């Protein structure tokens, strides 16, 4: 019987690679795309849909023509290059008419004015959006509305300057009155003084200043505005005006005072209950009944006012949600510290309530910006319908359907998508809880 020596391995076996189906791309595919019969079917359906879109849109986009003077020429070029019956996008229209999409009928030698105003917009909103920037920039933000008004509409610089002086009047009266009468009375006095300034001093003072130092830009009429210029003017003005108004409405709705609450609720529910179009028609058809006979003011301004009301009602509801989400203890703590109503709102309630409502506020803003296209129905040239109709009325571009919509739609997409990403960033940045 021979000696039996058991075999003992002295070194470890090198680990084997997992089976082919359990690693790399195949594993990923099996886990993420084909993990069961239902998922396999869904994946195949998804692939089919994707393929369908690509096979229809792909060639059309690949056969794009950028240099042509009319749709017929575009089609000739496509037929010559890609063969008879090929379809292609005619972006030559965009090349030919981009200025109308951006500025409407704004006189072309003056394009620098809206462009400058648009560039300054970013400088003006930067200190609001990013708190790291120097606070001095806020001065520019304060004068930006007057400056932009002057740049866009032209005319004498003194009209907006004197109008801004109205706020100066408010500040002076408030400062003088506050030590003697306290905050509420002096705010009321300031408001009265400012209204008086705007009603009676505005025109003569502007005229006098204009005769002393004439600084004018060529004036541009409102009906020359159009395209994204119009959308941005309406959108930005209404957005910045609707936030403070929405906050006031939300506070009014939460107020203990029955009358204030009733009025706020009535306003909010009325505005939210009717479509924006009816409000726009109110701006164009009905305001002439409600205002004193003979008064006639700018259609863009009228539309901005109604759009602001519309947005403010929605924002009020969003902020009310934020207020309701605050724990009761926050209000009680503010009371315990002896803060009065406005101090409590400013220092404790609003910072938290607004933070909670950021997603809602931004989505209201996005909705508002998208809704600026509806001004087409009161005769203004919005980029989507108004300008496209004008372009299509031209004999050269008659029959062009998809390109204008795709072009205007993608610009809207970029702006709105950007806004929603900013709000997500802001939400993350302001998040202070450690959940």
């Amino acid at each position, binding site marked *: 019987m021979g000696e039996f020596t058991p075999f003992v391995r002295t070194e470890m076996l090198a680990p084997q690679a997992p089976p082919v189906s359990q690693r790399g791309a195949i594993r990923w595919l099996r886990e993420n795309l084909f993990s069961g019969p239902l998922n396999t079917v869904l*994946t195949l359906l998804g692939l089919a849909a994707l393929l369908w879109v690509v096979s229809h849109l792909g060639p059309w986009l690949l056969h794009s023509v950028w240099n042509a003077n009319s749709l017929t020429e575009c089609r000739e070029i496509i037929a010559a290059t890609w063969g008879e019956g090929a379809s292609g996008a005619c972006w030559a229209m965009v090349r030919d008419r981009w200025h109308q999409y951006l500025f409407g009928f704004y006189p072309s030698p003056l394009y620098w004015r809206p462009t400058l105003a648009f560039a300054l917009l970013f400088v003006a909103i930067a200190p609001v959006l990013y708190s790291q920037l120097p606070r001095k920039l806020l001065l520019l933000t304060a004068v930006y509305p007057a400056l932009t008004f002057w740049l866009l509409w032209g005319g004498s610089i003194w009209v907006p300057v004197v109008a801004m002086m109205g706020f100066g009047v408010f500040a002076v009266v408030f400062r003088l009155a506050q030590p003697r009468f306290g905050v509420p009375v002096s705010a009321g006095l300031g408001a009265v003084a400012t209204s008086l300034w705007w009603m009676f001093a505005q025109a003569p003072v502007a005229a006098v200043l204009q005769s002393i130092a004439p600084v004018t830009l060529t004036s541009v009429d409102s009906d020359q505005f159009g395209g994204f210029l119009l959308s941005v003017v309406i959108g930005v003005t209404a957005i910045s005006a609707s936030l403070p108004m929405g906050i006031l409405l939300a506070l009014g709705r939460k107020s203990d005072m029955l009358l204030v609450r009733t009025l706020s609720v009535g306003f909010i529910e009325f505005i939210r209950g009717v479509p924006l179009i009816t409000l726009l028609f109110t701006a164009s058809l009905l305001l002439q*009944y409600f205002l004193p006979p003979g008064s006639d003011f700018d259609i863009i301004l009228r539309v901005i006012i109604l759009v602001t009301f519309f947005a403010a009602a929605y924002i009020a509801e969003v902020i009310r949600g934020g207020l309701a989400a605050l724990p009761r203890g926050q209000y009680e703590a503010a009371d315990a510290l002896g803060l009065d109503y406005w101090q409590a709102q400013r220092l404790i309630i609003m910072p938290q309530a607004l933070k909670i409502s950021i997603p809602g506020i931004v989505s209201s803003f996005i909705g508002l910006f998208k809704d600026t296209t509806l001004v087409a129905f009161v005769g203004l040239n919005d980029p989507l319908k108004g300008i496209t109709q004008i372009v299509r009325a031209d004999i050269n571009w008659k029959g062009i359907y998809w390109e204008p919509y795709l072009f205007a739609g993608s610009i809207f*997409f970029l702006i709105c998508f950007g806004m929603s990403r900013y709000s997500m960033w802001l939400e993350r940045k302001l998040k202070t809880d450690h959940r």
Partner: protein
Amino acid sequence: MAFVQEPPKDAFRLGMLIYDTRYRSITIQVVVLVLFLLFLSWLVNNTIANLALKDRTFDFAFLFARSGYDINQTLVDYTNDSSHLRAAYIGLLNTLLSALIGCALATVLGVTVGVLRLSRNWLISRLMTVYVEIFRNVPVLLWILLGAAILSEATPAPADYRVTEAMQAAGEAPKASMVLFDSVAITTRGINIPAPMVEHGLPRLELPGISLNSNLLVFFLVLGAGLYADHRIRAHARRVQEATGLRPVTWWKSLAVIFVPTIGLLMLMGFHLDYPVLKKFNFTGGIEVLHSFTALTFALAVYTAAFIAEIVRAGILAISRGQSEAAFALGLRPGRTMSLVILPQALRVIIPPLISQYLNLTKNTSLAIAVSYMDLRGTLGGVTLNQTGKELECMLLMMGIYLTISLTISSLMNLFNRAVKLKER
């Protein structure tokens, strides 16, 4: 000897109206009331002055005058001899039809997309994200215009469906053919679908003021009775289950009580479909669905569905994983987990924002103006307004109607919300 003394009362001074918190709110409300009444009277005064200046009156008598215009989609009887009020009613029905179908489509699509976006399938969840982002971030007006452009530009003309003798001889097929088993024809003019018809119908039910289609009425009565019987059967099954632990098989009973009477009724009435047929220049027979209606409704549905998808996703994500794990630990199957544990809780989160999406869709039907669909704004706020020049009356009436619709929807949905809400003590 101690005695309680009231704190000394200050004599009332005028300044207390502002500085004393007991009186301040009254002061503010009085000021607000005065300002509001002044503003209101200013508006009314201006309106009266303007009306006098334009030599117009404020009355609603024009509503009973002959309208004199045709409407291309009428759900109930209407001719151009009918009154403006009738035209407004037709418009209101068209608005409601579009809103109703739009809401139903948007819900189905939105729930599907919202659930699929949470799917573990990489491709599908990415595709659904793309869908949501694209449709949310572009104005709904674009989708309506694009839908109208596709329907009018990319569809065949009625003549393309024609098979001429020469083509028959050559064995050629026509350029276009009907879809869905030769029952639906999509042309540049509209979509022709089969119409439900009955052979031996009942006479119309004439009530004072309204005239009802009694066939439809009887059908819904029978269907409602069937659904009620089904409800009773399930309630009985539940009682048996609670008493004995065994649930009787009910599915065939449910099917029987719902379908047997309704199908019997339909056969009794001689129900059949009236298919569209190509006549000289266009299809006749069946129902012609206007492209304006289709474009508007579908565009609103896909746009709103993107928002509903996000709401549904957020609602499902709001239910913590522990809930489904607990349900599995209790031994519930995935289907029962979904219907008994997850959905009832998710619905509480989903319903309030869903209501506001329905409201938005309903209000957005006023964008019918973009495709000339004759909704409430197209009739009352459009042709009637232009014909009679009664801007103030038409607009106020239209706003009032929209407001009523909105408030009705939100109060109905709030009732539903209260029913599914978590019952708290």
